[in-house]
């Protein structure tokens, strides 16, 4: 590596060539004040706060954009510099209100801090200040232009970091203003990072404003409990309430290099809800009444023992949510195996692809790290709207593209919200995706790259055939294949809609073939990642929270209950009454049980049917571990003690075991993980107490170059497209709603607005439908109406319906056996 050596304030340091003077100074522990500098973005030199004196330079230089050179001699605190800094601050303060005590930013404001350290004591200007009225840019962001210092960090964060470009500067000079725009293809995603980026009180969070002064808040590092991206965050709490969530902070830094999406920033308020369960509830004379833990445990143990003795362990089932901590899931498995002696264990409500599929298991065997995305030269995203499902994986893709490192290839019938960042957008017709991957991309690879000859001979389709099936012209496949073949580091990400696809087995085989072909190339390394849905889906998968030998998956358990073979069900953190297929049938099945025990934060629809309800704690009150989608195990630290009698899930599970006569001797999450390390391959290294601030990756036994095999998929034919007013329904997790907890998050509910059904512009035109119009989705099983949303880049013949809106009984329309979800669309 090329290096340069320079001297700053008499101290010498050697840094990599290209390092700025500002960053070199930082390494020496020399603080230079800044405003517009943002470490992750190109410097723009707008604020002139970072001026330094450099020998042989005629004028002061901005250290944030001046690259260190060999022998440079820099001074950061000469009289000239100090005078300039004072001057800059005096200018900024001409128009800035001097009322920090009533500003919400007070205490964490860079202008306040810099003025205190470097500024003048008094101003020589006593003219009127410019005045603007404060206004709400949307439901979460308030803009007070009076406080804005035009550093443009917000605008750049929005455009270059998050790839949205909703914020802009209008007008010029002293008239410049920040404004937000809607239109074209851009819309604010409420990620909240512009608020994080603002150095002053110009952009503030509406849900947080004036709830507290920042110095009275307790800060606790935690991990987001929504999606599988595993974002790190800092919880800011007072007593037993979370008041704000921030990108994980590093002490002494104003800006974080870690980021969150809307769910991370604004989705926490369910934790504070008064409706949270606080004591165990036992059904007595038809009513759920509060009882003590002793009584609850005793009752549960008695029931479970009785049922086990009479009907055997097989008559008991456990459904444990992938939202639980690793410790919780491990104990749930132990409870099933060691104590209840039942193979009926599951963590999936909907039959989202069988994880038993061989191709899936090979592809998921060693996930690519999220960081790998940032250094990959080719990134392939298959089968998920990544901006909705994995916002922060998307951010890494944008980062790579922003730094001109990676080229992005997408393969999906709809738009992925990656806008200008995609190099090759392959949009197969819905139902032909397996063909596009398995015959299109692979075939194109055999034509453009020196792949294994034997495999090549087995692929005897033509690109023209694939073009006809998929609607993608041959050159698109060829260009994408060239990019793939030419890359040294490739990352392939595949998501939820591969697993929920009507032809998921073929789809997975097709992806496996693509990987096998790429692995046969001499150059480059290909990493593959399944993008799971929930915060600990990966943990649940790795722990093997699935039916044991001859065991039943959730749907099987429901059928067994209907037949009277399953007598007891223990539901931990899930709500099948809303999230499972055919809630009415589920309700009937649950009604047949002798004993239904539900453990949750709220009295959910399922809990309302239970005989015993156990109050669990949220992620903020829990010492536990999540395994992110890429295998990174990270630790949660409790920010406050549990609400009244609520207890961590692992604690309840251990208590239950004890009540049934088995003392696991586990008193802490660390003990549990030590045990898990012994029993579960890959978990050897992961000890809850050793995880530290940055977590540890699980040890996957499979090498990173996956040993995939060529799969024959000769007999494959794409789905026949539907015509007229019949549509394929895609059930999607909306960015603001991803499970049962988000339903209790007030702010997210506000952001997501009302439920909708989304149609392509083409189909809307064809059927003469307009935006906002009510339409009815109908199947043989039922029907319901929703307002219509028209999207430009959606695949023809599809309707996208968000799951998890209580008012959308989408799961009522289909039976659990159906893999292809077809509906009739009726206007009105």
């Amino acid at each position, binding site marked *: 590596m090329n290096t340069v050596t320079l001297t700053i304030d008499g101290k010498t340091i050697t840094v990599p060539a290209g390092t700025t003077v500002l960053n070199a100074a930082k390494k020496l522990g020399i603080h230079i004040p800044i405003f517009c500098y943002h470490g992750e973005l190109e410097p723009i030199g707008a604020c002139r706060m970072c001026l330094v004196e450099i020998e042989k330079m005629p004028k002061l230089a901005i250290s944030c954009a001046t690259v260190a050179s060999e022998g440079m001699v820099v001074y950061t605190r000469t009289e000239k510099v100090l005078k300039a800094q004072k001057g800059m601050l005096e200018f900024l303060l001409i128009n800035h209100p001097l009322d920090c005590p009533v500003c919400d930013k007070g205490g964490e404001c860079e202008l306040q801090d810099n003025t205190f350290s470097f500024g003048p004591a008094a101003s020589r200007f006593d003219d009127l200040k410019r005045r603007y009225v404060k206004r709400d*840019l*949307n439901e979460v962001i308030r803009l007070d232009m009076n406080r804005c210092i035009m550093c443009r960090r917000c*605008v750049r964060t929005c*455009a270059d970091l998050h790839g*949205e*470009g*909703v*914020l*802009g*500067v*209008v*007008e*010029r000079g002293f008239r410049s203003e920040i*404004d*937000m*725009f*809607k*239109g*074209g*293809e*851009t819309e604010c995603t409420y990620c909240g990072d512009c608020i994080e980026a603002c150095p002053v009180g110009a952009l503030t969070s509406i849900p947080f404003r004036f709830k507290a002064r920042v110095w009275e808040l307790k800060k606790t590092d935690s991990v987001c409990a929504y999606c599988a991206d595993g974002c790190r965050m800092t919880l800011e709490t007072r007593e037993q309430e979370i008041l704000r969530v921030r990108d994980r902070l590093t002490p002494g830094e104003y800006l974080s290099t870690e980021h969150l999406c809307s769910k991370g920033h604004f989705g926490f308020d369910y934790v504070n809800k008064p409706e949270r369960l606080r004591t165990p509830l036992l059904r007595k004379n038809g009513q759920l009444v509060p009882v003590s833990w002793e009584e609850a445990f005793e009752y549960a143990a008695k029931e479970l023992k009785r049922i086990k003795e009479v009907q055997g362990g097989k008559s008991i089932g456990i459904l444990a949510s992938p939202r639980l901590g690793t410790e919780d899931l491990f104990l749930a498995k132990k409870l099933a195996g060691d104590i209840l002696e039942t193979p009926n264990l599951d963590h999936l409500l909907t039959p989202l692809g069988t994880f038993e599929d061989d191709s899936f298991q090979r592809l998921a065997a060693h996930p690519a790290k999220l960081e790998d995305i940032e250094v990959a030269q080719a990134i392939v995203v298959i089968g998920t709207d990544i901006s909705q499902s994995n916002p922060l994986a998307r951010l890494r893709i944008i980062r790579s593209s922003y730094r001109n490192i990676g080229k992005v290839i997408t393969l999906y019938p709809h738009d992925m919200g990656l*806008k*200008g960042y995609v190099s090759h957008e392959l949009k197969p017709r819905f139902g032909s995706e397996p063909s596009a991957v398995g015959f299109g991309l692979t075939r194109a690879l055999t034509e453009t790259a020196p792949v294994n000859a034997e495999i090549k001979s087995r692929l005897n389709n033509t690109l023209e055939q694939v073009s006809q099936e998929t609607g993608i012209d041959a050159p698109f496949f060829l260009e994408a294949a060239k990019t793939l073949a030419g890359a040294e580091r490739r990352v392939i990400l595949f998501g939820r809609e591969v697993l929920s696809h009507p032809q998921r087995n073929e789809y997975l085989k097709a992806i496996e073939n693509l990987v096998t072909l790429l692995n046969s190339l001499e150059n480059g390394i290909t990493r593959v990642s399944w993008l799971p849905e929930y915060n600990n889906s990966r943990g649940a998968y790795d722990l093997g929270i699935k039916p044991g030998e001859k065991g039943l998956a959730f749907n099987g358990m429901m059928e067994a209950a209907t037949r009277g073979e399953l007598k007891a069900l223990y539901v931990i953190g899930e709500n099948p009454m809303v999230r499972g297929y055919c809630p009415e049938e589920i309700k009937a099945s649950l009604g047949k049980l002798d004993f239904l025990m539900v453990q949750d934060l709220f009295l959910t629809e399922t809990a309302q049917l239970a005989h015993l309800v156990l109050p669990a704690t949220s992620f903020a009150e829990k010492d536990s571990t999540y395994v992110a989608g890429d295998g990174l195990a990270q630790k949660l630290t409790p920010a406050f003690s549990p609400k009244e009698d609520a207890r961590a899930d692992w604690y309840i599970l251990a208590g239950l075991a004890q009540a049934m006569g088995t003392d696991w001797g586990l008193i802490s999450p660390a003990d549990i993980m030590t045990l898990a390390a012994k029993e579960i391959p890959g978990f050897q290294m992961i000890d809850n107490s050793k995880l530290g601030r940055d977590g540890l990756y699980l040890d996957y036994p499979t090498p990173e170059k996956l040993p995939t095999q060529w799969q024959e998929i000769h007999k494959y034919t794409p789905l026949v497209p539907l015509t007229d007013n019949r549509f394929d329904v895609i059930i999607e997790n909306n960015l603001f709603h991803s499970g049962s907890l988000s339903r209790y998050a007030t702010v997210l509910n506000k952001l997501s607005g009302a439920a909708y059904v989304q149609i392509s512009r083409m189909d809307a035109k064809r059927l003469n439908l307009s935006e906002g119009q009510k339409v009815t989705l109908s199947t043989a099983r039922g029907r319901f109406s929703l307002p219509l949303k028209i999207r*430009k880049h959606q695949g023809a013949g599809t309707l996208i319906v968000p799951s998890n809106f209580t008012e959308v009984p989408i799961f009522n329309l289909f039976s659990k056996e159906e893999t292809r979800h077809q509906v009739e669309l009726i206007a009105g």
Partner: protein
Amino acid sequence: MSQVSMQSEPLDLKPLDEILSEYAGRTGTLITILQRAQEIYGYLPPEVLLHIAERGDIPLSQIYGVVTFYSQFYLTRRGKHIIRQCDGTACHVRGAGKIVDVVEHELNIVDGETTPDYKYSFEVVYCLGSCGLSPVAVIDDTVYGRLSPEKMAQMLKEMH
């Protein structure tokens, strides 16, 4: 949120589409596109900006930034006659302020506005580069030097 409201009669976007096709795939052409669009429509109505944003995959925020940064672009429909009165330093000391008053009084509009009948638009500018002739105004591309409030009033009457 900047509200981009639609005007009642639909605009013919075909000529704009032609321009956009001409520049499709080329970067750094936004200003040229905006200039040519303004030539067609006389100003840059919201539909035009939205259309450019959508077809060019350019965030509206960026387009707005450019349009409001350069004084050559107009977001509102402008009058048939454009009166630009200079109030730069030289013109100011020679009484341009009084001329501004006359225009504002006679036309009943202020700096940056257009009369409701779309006959006149009025702008105050700062230095037209003809300080030797100050006070200076430009009316529809013709420069008028050594003005006085009376002369301006006279000219306005004659334009009626």
